[in-house]
């Protein structure tokens, strides 16, 4: 891998230059506590200590609403509404968010690629940023705390700048085209990088192997804890909407009032909603709130074989954004009680 360094004094210029590669989106504060990734005009407004955004990075690749088809009812015909996506730059993605995108890739770019997703993914330039975990983070347990692939550049904080890992041909291009911004990595930078990693690892709340959690979960599905926790649940869907890997959608045909045209739309759905499990004939695969509640735990902890991880990347969003204070991690720790490793 190629490594370069950027000094703090050059960061502003670096962010400005990123705009040459596409529209720049980065985290900004949108209210007292919350952040979201927005289009950036003034790079000074970018937040570097944002840990989580209320809309995960999936919004750039699977928008909350989108139009798929234009339908001609009279002629029983339709046209896929596929638009060219201009390149765009996503700045400040943490390791868990980058792994999350790779999980989405596994779903959307499989043997039947979703062309809408694929177009946007091709246009997206990913600039990663290191972070220090808070009480909600558990990416160390899900083994998603460090990424090897899935970014153009990854910036690791140093006392006087950033150590940058160059992760793709596009990343090389950005470095090569802006030689005035980057310097060589020195011995003290490597030491600082190691110190940062050491400090970061010490900040997690829990340690040990979490790989067996999906089996423990299956074995404890009848435990009382799930009745109690499901009872607290509001069924609001915040957990899945803010989850970087939840990707379920609903599709609907909306006819125009003249009866001649219609559009097919797709929008974010949630397994926490009643109609998500409803099929033709009126059968519901998840008829109760508890069924829906448990479904998310099982789905998130299922094995994602292309990466050898689970679908959960340990970001803590579902807990942070739960109005009912339901703690995903603590519930898993609770059922895992007895394993001290």
């Amino acid at each position, binding site marked *: 891998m190629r490594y370069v360094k950027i000094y703090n004094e050059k960061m502003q210029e670096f962010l400005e230059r990123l705009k040459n590669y596409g529209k720049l989106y980065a985290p900004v504060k*949108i*209210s*007292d*506590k*919350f952040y*979201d990734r927005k289009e950036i005009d003034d790079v000074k407004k970018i937040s570097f200590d944002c840990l989580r955004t*209320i*809309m995960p990075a999936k*919004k750039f690749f699977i928008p*909350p*609403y989108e139009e798929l088809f234009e339908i001609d*009812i009279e002629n029983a015909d339709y046209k896929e509404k596929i638009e060219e996506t201009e390149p765009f730059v996503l700045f400040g993605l943490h390791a868990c968010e980058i792994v999350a995108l790779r999980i989405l890739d596994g779903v959307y770019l499989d043997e039947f690629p979703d062309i809408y997703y694929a177009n946007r993914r091709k246009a997206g330039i990913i600039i990663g940023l290191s972070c220090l975990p808070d009480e909600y983070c558990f990416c160390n347990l899900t083994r998603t705390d460090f990424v090897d692939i899935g970014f153009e550049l990854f910036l690791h904080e140093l006392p006087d700048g950033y150590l940058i890992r160059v992760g793709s041909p596009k990343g090389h291009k950005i470095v090569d085209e802006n030689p005035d911004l980057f310097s060589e990595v020195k011995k003290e930078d490597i030491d600082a990088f190691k110190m940062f990693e050491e400090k970061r690892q010490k900040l997690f709340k829990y340690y040990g192997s979490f790989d067996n959690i999906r089996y423990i979960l299956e074995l404890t599905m009848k435990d009382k804890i799930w009745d109690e926790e499901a*009872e*607290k*649940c*509001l*069924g*609001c*869907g*915040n957990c899945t*909407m*803010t989850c970087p890997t939840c990707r379920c959608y609903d599709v*609907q045909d*909306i*006819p*125009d*009032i*003249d*009866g001649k045209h219609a559009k097919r739309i797709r*929008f*974010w759905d*949630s397994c926490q*909603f*009643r*109609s998500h499990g409803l099929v033709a004939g009126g059968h519901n695969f998840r008829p109760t*709130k508890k069924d829906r509640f448990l479904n998310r735990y099982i789905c998130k902890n299922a094995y994602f074989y292309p990466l050898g991880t689970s679908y959960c990347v340990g970001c803590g969003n579902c807990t942070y*954004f*739960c*109005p*009912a*204070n339901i703690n995903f991690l603590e519930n898993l720790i609770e059922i895992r009680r007895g394993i001290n490793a």
Partner: protein
Amino acid sequence: MKKLKIGVHGLTSCYGCQLKMASLKLAENIEIVYWNMLSSKGEIGKVDVAFVEGSVSTGEDEEELKKIRENADILVAMGTCATHGGVQGVIFGEDYKKCFKEIYGDNNIEFDGRIGEPIKKYVKVDYNLPGCPPEEDEILYYLATFALGSYPEEKDYPVCAECRRNGYPCILIEKNKPCLGPLTVAGCKARCLKYGIECTGCRGPLPHNIAWFDSLARTFKERGMSKEFIKSKMEIFGKQYENMEELINKVFE
């Protein structure tokens, strides 16, 4: 294409739903058979779809509603008064009698006043078009699907879904505001949340017994809100939701 014959009716309500509908540009494939608010011509007759606004609050309302039902293939409850009784449905029992007397005194009045109730208590309702008033796009969607000989998919998920899809901050978490978004049927695109105002539940509680008054009351209680306060917020549009009070009481036992 065959024209869709519709009737639009107002029981006891503010006529805001009809006004909203009247402001829309309808297409030539829709024939208005009866719409008293727009024209005194016409009478209640056979229609494909009848849209009924308002709650049943008088004996006359009940009679009219039954006549509408007999003449309509499809009956749509339009707006929160029709679907849930509306704000006027909040007053019950002795309170109702007291209130009625305060307003009308001892004078003999011609109508038989009743507690405002959702129309499903009196007739079979085929579809609910929620809102206070319903949203333009939903009115058009319902009409368009009926005109095609199809039917609309009713939403059964909460306002929170639209709030998150739009990227608004969750003010229940952030500011401890008594937001009824989790209980309330979506469709408004979380309009109030866009302006940082908590959801008052004007579109009515979620259908299919999935409005979790108990869980939300518990969340509010944990945030320091009193039972009386929680109840006063939840009953504005939710009073006639089956076992609403029971669900709230359970949390304070």
